[in-house]
């Protein structure tokens, strides 16, 4: 089999160009490797080789994300590589986000296998771990050897399209896809060990993490509601009659964005619910029962609120579903911010 051609992405620091003062350098494609790439090449022997390295400053990437991304994509494409590797970024936040963003882009647009590595608390890990394989590294460059030891074999497997084993076997950050494996010890022995650790306040790793129950700090209160733009969102599935965007009744693959300019009330002649998670009769009769446009219009007229935002966002979500459509909300929250929304009323069934 021919040697696998790999292109490697690193920031200014790992290219040996400089630290923060050089973080604004623009993307550059070089033939050959940087030290991290040398280590990978050494680990691969005759199997694979980094032929090109792309270098970009972290600040430049962070501040010019779309442009930088497009430039880098062209560079990757021009090399004709079989695989793309970014980092490892360890605990460097902007570098981690850059590695995750570019690797995800490469995977989605060029369709070649990608791999990166970073510390589990790197913000890039949370953003991209469900989309690409991210090897879990230590929190600083001192963990380079360990990172290469995990990345090199996983990269080969990915490049060859081989079966990827469970996260604890391959060393990637758990990505939410459950993969079976045979443990050395039976479940009972593992349970007793875990309990002893838990009883002694020693660290232990659950084999099945419960869904995310983390919290976000509350944002400050709205100071002057009479000047505020209030947006409505719902997980109750409110849609125009006939459900033109075909929002699925459960586990929907997209969310709805609808204009309510001039709409005074969610009357049953024009609106309905796409939600399959409850008896739709009442909301189909009167959509204000789910999305209170009628009273907010009154409040807009009376000056209680500054303005009702002219778009609302809708998803179908069981109130009690353990999984939530996190990505949708991330996306439309950004849209609302860009549109100058000040606060949000989210209604759920």
């Amino acid at each position, binding site marked *: 089999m021919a040697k696998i051609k790999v292109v490697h992405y690193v920031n200014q620091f790992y290219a040996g160009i400089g630290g923060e003062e050089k973080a604004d350098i623009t993307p550059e494609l070089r033939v050959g490797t940087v030290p991290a790439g040398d280590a990978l090449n050494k680990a691969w022997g005759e199997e694979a080789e980094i032929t090109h390295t792309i270098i970009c400053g972290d600040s430049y990437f962070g501040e010019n994300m779309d442009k930088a991304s497009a430039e880098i994509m062209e560079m990757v494409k021009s090399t004709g590589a079989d695989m793309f590797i970014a980092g490892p970024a360890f605990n460097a936040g902007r570098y981690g986000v850059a590695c995750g963003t570019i690797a995800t882009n490469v995977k989605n647009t060029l369709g070649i296998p990608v791999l990166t590595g970073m510390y589990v608390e790197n913000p890039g890990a949370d953003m991209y771990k469900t989309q690409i394989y991210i090897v879990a590294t230590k929190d600083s460059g001192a963990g380079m050897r360990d990172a290469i030891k995990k990345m090199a074999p996983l990269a080969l497997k990915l490049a060859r399209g081989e079966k990827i084993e*469970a*996260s*604890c*076997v391959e060393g990637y950050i*758990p990505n*939410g*896809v*459950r*993969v*079976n*494996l*045979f*443990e*050395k*010890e*039976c*479940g*009972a*022995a*593992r*349970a*007793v060990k*875990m*309990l*002893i650790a*838990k*009883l*002694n306040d020693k660290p*232990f790793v*659950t*084999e*099945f*993490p*419960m*869904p995310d*129950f983390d919290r976000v700090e509350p944002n400050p209160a709205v100071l002057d509601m009479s000047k505020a733009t209030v947006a409505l969102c719902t997980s109750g599935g409110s849609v125009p009659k006939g459900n033109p965007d075909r929002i699925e009744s459960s586990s929907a693959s997209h969310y709805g964005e609808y204009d309510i300019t001039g709409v005074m009330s969610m009357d049953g002649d024009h609106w309905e619910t796409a939600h399959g998670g409850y008896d739709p009769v009442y909301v189909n009769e009167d959509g204000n029962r789910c999305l209170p446009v009628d009273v907010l219009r009154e409040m807009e007229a009376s000056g209680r609120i500054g303005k009702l935002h002219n778009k609302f966002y809708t998803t179908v979500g069981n109130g009690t*579903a*353990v*999984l939530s459509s996190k990505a949708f909300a991330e996306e439309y929250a950004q849209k609302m911010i860009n549109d100058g929304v000040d606060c949000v009323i989210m209604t759920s069934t």
Partner: protein
Amino acid sequence: MKLELGNIIINDIQFTNEGSKVENGVLTVNPEQIKSLVLEDSNIESCEVFIARPGESVRITPVKDVIEPRVKVEGPGGIFPGWIAKVDTVGSGRTNVLKGAAVVTTGKIVGFQEGIIDMTGPGADYTPFSKTYNLVVKMEPVEGLKQHDHEYALRIAGFKVACFLGELGRAVTPDEIETFEFDNLVESAKKYPDLPRVAYVQMLQSQGLLHDTYVYGVDAKRTLTTIINPLETMDGAIVSGNCVSSCDKNPTYVHLNNKVIRELFKAHGKTLNFVGHIITNENVYLADKERSSNWSAKLAEYLGCDGVIISQEGFGNPDTDLIMNTKKIEAKGIKTVIITDEYAGRDGKSQSLADADPSANAVVTGGNANQVIVLPPMETVYGHLHFVDTIAGGSANNIDAHGNITVEIQAITGATNETGFHNLSAR
């Protein structure tokens, strides 16, 4: 209380036309003796007996139960109290065990029954019973026998055969003797004042036909959560009536050799003080679930536990019991580790459990039961293969032209066992 298990290591099973016996690690069986024993029950029309050894190209399906042959040689009670023996308390004296042998019963009680044991090939890795020397007892009922009576007949026949084989080991000197001692609460507290106190909370499937478990002959759905001496469990107090969705159901063999109990005994007096075994049920009625989990928490507190291990049995609604038990026990300040399995979909991307709670922060998993496996054809099939396409984890037309069967591992007996009996897991 002290229990000795005298293990007679079995390295092979052979048929004979003469008397059945155990000699030099070989279990020699006269199949006619087995048949006449089974056919004592007028509800059973016919019986066939086969041998399945590790590594042989053999598939057994649908598996009804797996039972370890044993005999009580010293002390009160007998094997399978409430069924074969009287209800005298077991768990003391000596019991001889034909270690490495198992009785596997098979028979079609309902059309969608599964339970696959492959003795070789990829499927063999997923079942613990590919490593035992199995005496397979295949039984057909008399015409028109109702499913409840059919299940009962097969269950009892399995116990009878296991006792018959066990009896052959009565006079044999065991290769090894394992001794287990369980002190009462006061004594163990005196002996190990500084060790954390740990109990085992075992959830027993208890919902109806092919979903039942029995304790000293009592249907577990008609019990309140209670305390049992773990030695009683090790000595046959709990038996299985439970075989559908066989990946996470406990055959009788698993109760006899409950690994949570064994591991707790291993750690007892060293890193923890094993203070008790709480058995609770998994009923259909929600008020029963509330009540039973209240009692688990209350008894764990009553035993003065610092920690417990909770094991589940089955899929779906027991997730509710599991989370209730965990939340209520954690709320008492008692630390928990739970053992479950997952139904994360064939792609591993779906929600694994039907319930969740942040207090369940220490989980051991028996793996994703939806994982798909291709089982190549075996030279011999004992049982009814043509039912494989209508079973849990199977699907219509899942046997290809070469005889490969595509199934989810939920069809394989013991694959994702939730008492931590096997070593499959997931991440």
